[in-house]
């Protein structure tokens, strides 16, 4: 068995994404969206998501991030609104339960700041997005924090009567804070 685990390490050693992807502490992570209704900023989180981050500031070309968001976990704090947002006009979670971001490139902006870029798919529509993020360390742990703007109508989020951007603005800020534990995951779930 020793041999095979060594073989595994060797095998996955060729694929740093698998080896270096460290566990995310979801209790200390969050992904929120901030929209503007009648110019009133309203922020709400997605309580369920999955993130895989491989990040080496010295090897950005080998670094990557992939985030899957459970759209039905959107929680604005009002049951009626939550219900509506799962509806066809908004996320249509029945047909499109997951929003997915996969990084295509990460570059340094200097001073502990980086920019991540890649396709974001929501409701079956894919758009290239890019946004800056910062890297902070907390002991061996790492915190990635950043934001990017999307245009909701490009994804048909808020369709029908909601297309009126004088009520809900087209631009939506997506903010993320991903807390990656420093230790390697002790065991797979």
């Amino acid at each position: 068995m020793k041999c095979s685990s060594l073989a595994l390490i060797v095998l996955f050693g060729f694929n740093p994404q698998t080896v270096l992807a460290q566990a995310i502490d979801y209790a200390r992570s969050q992904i929120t969206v901030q929209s503007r209704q009648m110019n009133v900023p309203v922020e709400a989180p997605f309580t369920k998501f999955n993130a895989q981050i491989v990040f080496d500031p010295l090897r950005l070309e080998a670094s990557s991030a992939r985030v899957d968001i459970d759209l039905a976990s959107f929680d604005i704090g009002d049951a009626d609104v939550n219900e509506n947002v799962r509806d066809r006009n908004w996320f249509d979670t029945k047909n499109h339960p997951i929003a997915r971001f996969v990084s295509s490139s990460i570059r340094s902006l200097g001073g502990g700041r980086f920019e991540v870029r890649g396709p974001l798919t929501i409701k079956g529509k894919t758009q290239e997005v890019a946004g800056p993020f910062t890297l902070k360390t907390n002991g061996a742990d790492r915190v990635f924090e950043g934001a990017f703007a999307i245009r909701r109508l490009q994804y048909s989020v808020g369709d029908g009567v909601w297309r009126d951007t004088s009520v809900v603005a087209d631009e939506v800020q997506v903010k993320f804070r991903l807390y990656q534990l420093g230790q390697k995951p002790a065991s797979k779930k």
Partner: protein
Amino acid sequence: MRTAPDNIGRVHPTPVIDVSMQQPHPAYTPTAIGLHWIIFFLIACAWPLGQFVSGLPFSPQKLRLIAWHKWIGVTVFMLALLRLAWRLYRPPPPLPLSDLQRRAAGAVHALLYALIILIPISGWLFSSAAGVPTVYLGLIQLPDLLHKDKALAQTLNQVHATLNWTLLVLVCGHAGFALKHHLVDRDGVLVRMIPRLKVRKSESPS
């Protein structure tokens, strides 16, 4: 200067102001009157609007009307403070009433002032606790004194509603007594706030 012969034929100079033209009861200042009626009008819009909006299903129209309701509320709050400041600067003329009536009216007026200031504040806090900031006219964002807290938001919603129903009852009493003074007592109380009205003289020939 007009002159008139007295009953024994002597002519006296009379005062410049004809006594019969004088307001029997001095009115509020035009500023106070203006603020009173503007605030009344705004509340007469915001009150039913708030009631209506709370029953609407989630829709763009609902969000728009909520915003308008909040803008009116903020305006009422500012005008109420202005009104109170003006009242301290220019106290209203004393009510031509008995001591007891004067005290009762004073208490109701104090409560009305308290409510038109507290109701917008309670709405603003409710909105903050619900996680929705208030942006006056879509331009000026008010600070949020409270963090998002669902349970607190529900409580504040009830507080806001209760204060509003209290206001409705008091306003009905306030207006009812004003009309009673005007139509029954004919004592000029209502004329203080609506100077164009004349004190209704007793029409019985005497």
